[in-house]
């Protein structure tokens, strides 16, 4: 089948460095390691295989006769080309990626390598944007830039006397703009890392070796950040190709269709969905994403050459921008502005009895009624909050420990076939959210075991989704712990359980916290999986906001968004603080600086 002939070859490239004998703990495989390996492999396969298999089967079989067929592809291709779905998807994703990459990288460079002001503010607002559900931020933009009710449009019309509303966020341009801003925050957070870890003496050497500031930036700083830059660019391109929230909220009403929304529309909005065609769409999206992931892998593989942290004599001298410092400061302020503006708009709308454009006159009608209504409308909002906490917290916790054990097996032991754990864990990277949701849905919907319709199905889907990242975070975590620390535990008489409890887990704490934080926030802010797998009593908070918006309860949606933004914002920063604090302690313990 095409699944098995395409995926392994492409995805295998994503595995991380196979040659590391110096990390092995024992020369022989221990029985307890074999048992652990068996359990973990079964678990990973259980997470990943059913959705993938059901998609592939559905895409290539006839729904009535159960025979092998390519009809689904033959049917959808002309429509896709005719309606411009594929070109829309590409234009949207590539434009948003290019803009966010340029914008975010320059900000990261300014924040880490120069003395530009407002560094802290940019960092905080970027992190806030990363922690908040995309739905919330997109709604904020509708209030700001919507054609009819947009605040900025109304200002342009009333104040400047322009006759028709000039801006429309519900268009291709608007979609690219909003998606680019959302991703700028992420690109910024990712690009800060290579710029921060860069050894300043490499730049200083360039200045002493007669290079001007501009020359040193172009010939040294930029080149050193390049491998990391490629990786960030490709991963953002992948995520933008599968982006759902922005195309759904802005594109669907505006008539701009992309692959991800087509899958949703065909699955959700019709009475009798054609599963075969939906699967064909999904496979198409996966096929577009795969080569990009391969490029991403190639980019990250080269990073070993550029290991720039030297520890000794590491200085972080910042470039003095001189008279351009305040120009750079104004540029830095643009990101907090575009992140906070939609949130202020949400606060405003949440205080109104019905949607009104901000004005002194409207301020008189401000009240907290929408917030009371959230609690009044039964306990359903509270149910959603509880479901979100349960699903996100549960999936993150299970996953973090399972992947830690898996990484330990892959790095430290000689269990035959251990790299299968790595291989299985990277597959979800290639599966867009909406596709994964559909796959999980079909895999469990017909089963006699009651998984569909419970929170368990959400936990399963989100564990599959967060698997690649937590694996990666723990992988570098285990690699950074010197083998001797574990060997001395064994020599001191510890067994495997004691090794994990008393040595490995404490040392891994920063990696575990990072993985948990990422998995939790990604799950809590995610929409497409939550939409497809929702059931009565198991509606995630992003679904609740979406539903309120869909039925036109705009002010209630805004109020709920504000509550969620506050809760997740606080939680995000607490987690960030925790992983920083324990990160330092554990990094010292493992002998790194």
């Amino acid at each position, binding site marked *: 089948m095409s699944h098995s002939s395409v995926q392994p070859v492409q995805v295998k490239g994503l595995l991380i460095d196979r040659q590391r004998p110096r990390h092995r703990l024992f020369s022989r495989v221990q029985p307890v390691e074999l048992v652990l390996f068996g359990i973990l492999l079964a678990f990973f396969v259980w997470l990943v295989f059913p959705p993938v298999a059901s998609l592939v089967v559905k895409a290539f079989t006839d729904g009535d006769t159960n025979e092998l067929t390519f009809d689904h592809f033959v049917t959808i291709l002309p429509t896709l080309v005719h309606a411009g779905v594929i070109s829309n998807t590409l234009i949207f994703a590539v434009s948003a990626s290019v803009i966010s990459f340029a914008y975010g990288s320059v900000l990261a460079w300014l924040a880490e390598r120069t003395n530009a002001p407002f560094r802290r503010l940019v960092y905080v607002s970027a992190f806030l944007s990363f922690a908040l559900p995309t739905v919330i931020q997109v709604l904020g933009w509708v209030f700001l830039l919507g054609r009819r009710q947009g605040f900025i449009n109304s200002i342009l019309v009333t104040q400047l006397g322009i006759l028709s509303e000039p801006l429309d966020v519900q268009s291709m341009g608007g979609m690219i703009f909003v998606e680019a801003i959302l991703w700028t925050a992420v690109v910024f957070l990712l690009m800060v890392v290579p710029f921060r870890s860069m050894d300043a003496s490499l730049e200083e050497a360039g200045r002493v*070796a007669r290079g001007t500031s501009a020359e040193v930036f172009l010939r040294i700083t930029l080149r*050193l950040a390049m491998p990391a830059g490629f990786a960030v660019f490709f991963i953002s391109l992948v995520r933008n190709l599968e982006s759902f929230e922005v195309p759904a909220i802005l594109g669907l009403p505006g008539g701009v269709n992309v692959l991800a929304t087509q899958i949703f529309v065909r699955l959700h909005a019709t009475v009798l969905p054609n599963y075969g065609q939906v699967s064909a769409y999904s496979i198409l999206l996966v096929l577009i994403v795969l080569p990009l992931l391969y490029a991403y892998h190639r980019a990250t593989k080269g990073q070993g050459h550029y290991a720039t942290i030297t520890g000794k004599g590491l200085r972080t001298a910042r470039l003095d921008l001189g008279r351009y410092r305040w120009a750079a400061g104004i540029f830095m302020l643009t990101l907090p502005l575009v992140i906070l503006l939609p949130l202020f708009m949400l606060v405003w709308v949440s205080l109104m009895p019905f949607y009104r454009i901000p004005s002194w006159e409207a301020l008189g009608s401000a009240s907290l009624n929408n917030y009371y209504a959230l609690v009044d409308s039964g306990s359903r909002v509270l149910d959603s909050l509880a479901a979100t906490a349960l699903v996100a917290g549960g999936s993150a916790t299970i996953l973090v420990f399972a992947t830690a054990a898996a990484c330990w097996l892959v790095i430290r032991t000689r269990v035959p076939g251990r790299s299968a754990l790595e291989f299985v864990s990277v597959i979800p990277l290639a599966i867009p959210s909406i596709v994964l949701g559909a796959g999980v849905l079909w895999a469990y919907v017909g089963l006699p075991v009651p998984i569909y319709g419970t929170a368990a199905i959400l936990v399963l889907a989100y564990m599959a989704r967060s698997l690649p990242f937590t694996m990666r975070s723990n992988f570098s975590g285990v690699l950074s712990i010197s083998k001797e620390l574990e060997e001395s535990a064994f020599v001191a008489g510890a067994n495997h359980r004691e090794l994990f409890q008393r040595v490995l887990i404490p040392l891994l704490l920063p990696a575990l916290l990072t993985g948990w934080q990422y998995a939790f926030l990604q799950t809590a802010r995610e929409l497409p999986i939550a939409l497809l797998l929702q059931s009565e009593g198991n509606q995630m908070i992003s679904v609740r906001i979406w539903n309120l918006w869909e039925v036109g309860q705009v002010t209630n949606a805004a109020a709920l968004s504000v509550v969620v933004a506050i809760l997740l914002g606080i939680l995000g920063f607490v987690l960030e603080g925790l992983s920083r604090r324990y990160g330092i302690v554990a990094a010292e313990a493992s002998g790194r600086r």
Partner: protein
Amino acid sequence: MTRTGESTLVVRALNKHYGAFHAVRGVNFDIREGELYTLLGPSGCGKSTTLRCVAGLEHIDGGDIAIAGTVVDSSAPPVFMPPNKRDIGMVFQNYGIWPHMSVFDNVAFPITVWRSKVSRREVVRRTEEALAAVKLDHLSGRRGTELSGGQQQRVALARALVARPKLLLLDEPLSNLDATLRESMRMELRRLQKNVGITTLFVTHDQTEALSMSDRVAVMREGVIIQEDAPQEIYSKPSDLYVAGFLGRVNCFAAKVNTVHRDYVSVQVGSGTLHARSQRAMHEGARVVLAVRPEKMSLRQGESSAVNSLPGVVAEVSFIGEAVDYRLLVDGTSVIVRENARVIFPVGTSVRIEFDVDDGLLYEDEVAAAKVSQVSAVDPADGKLETPRTTDTPTTTPMRNQQFSLRKTATIGQST
């Protein structure tokens, strides 16, 4: 403008603060053309900061710096010339080899910058010449990260020299190499520096490097240059106990001046009398410290006819191949002696410890004199005999040295 004369580097009243920390406090020195001048001191003494100020990587808070007659830094009137215009070459402690470039491109960088007017052919010729000078011409196509530490160091050196700068700055260039490589690089670096004839400012915390490579050495402490002299001079006539201790191990005896005859001083150490030469005027009755380096002392069995002779018993013997380190007890106090390995005295042997009058160094030390009036011997390594090693890296830290006379010491003779 600062008068420079024939000095390639002139530093006057240099001051540098990091917040409340006063890192460099009014440092003055000149480096003559073709000279290798070393700033020696423990970490945090301000030596690297001084070098970074000369390079233009730090902005100074006070003073002047002139390179080859051109003022590159001045506090009044404010002058600051950026590093790329200073006509210098520099080797960083971690070499700063750019990992994304080949060895050739690393070395060629200073003559391929926009400002440089060197033709492409000339660039190739000079880069190959520089690589040949450091014996790396066969590796020019390699990536910077594919080299060993010693090779990276050579690349850094070639890069620093390729543009033929007026001044070469070396920031602890040997500290990241292993011991044997460090020794051979030391000699090679010195040879190359003399061949090229380049004026060099060298910063290190290793006294062996400083003594073996330099034309002149300046010992720094807490942001100040304490003493500046040629290596042999500074080693044999350290101006104070700090310098003496930083340049090598030293035995210290609390003493009292008996008689002074010009520079010939006789002192009372416990019950015995010892003799030394003093560079400073001493007055009779003053409490002083007599310092003698372990290798300046020798051991003899039986009667001694030497001017300076102390009775002692061998307590520990440490054979290190080229020499023997003894710890002796002189009435309960440790004295360290380094002897050649011709005869080895076993533990328990009674011997006479002898040293030349010219090898006894006398220092006034009020603290020592007040606290201890008896013989005290100080081994820098906390009174224990050092484990065998081939080089005499200083285990002495200034703090230890200052505390030498305050530490609980055994005494000989009666208490006064």
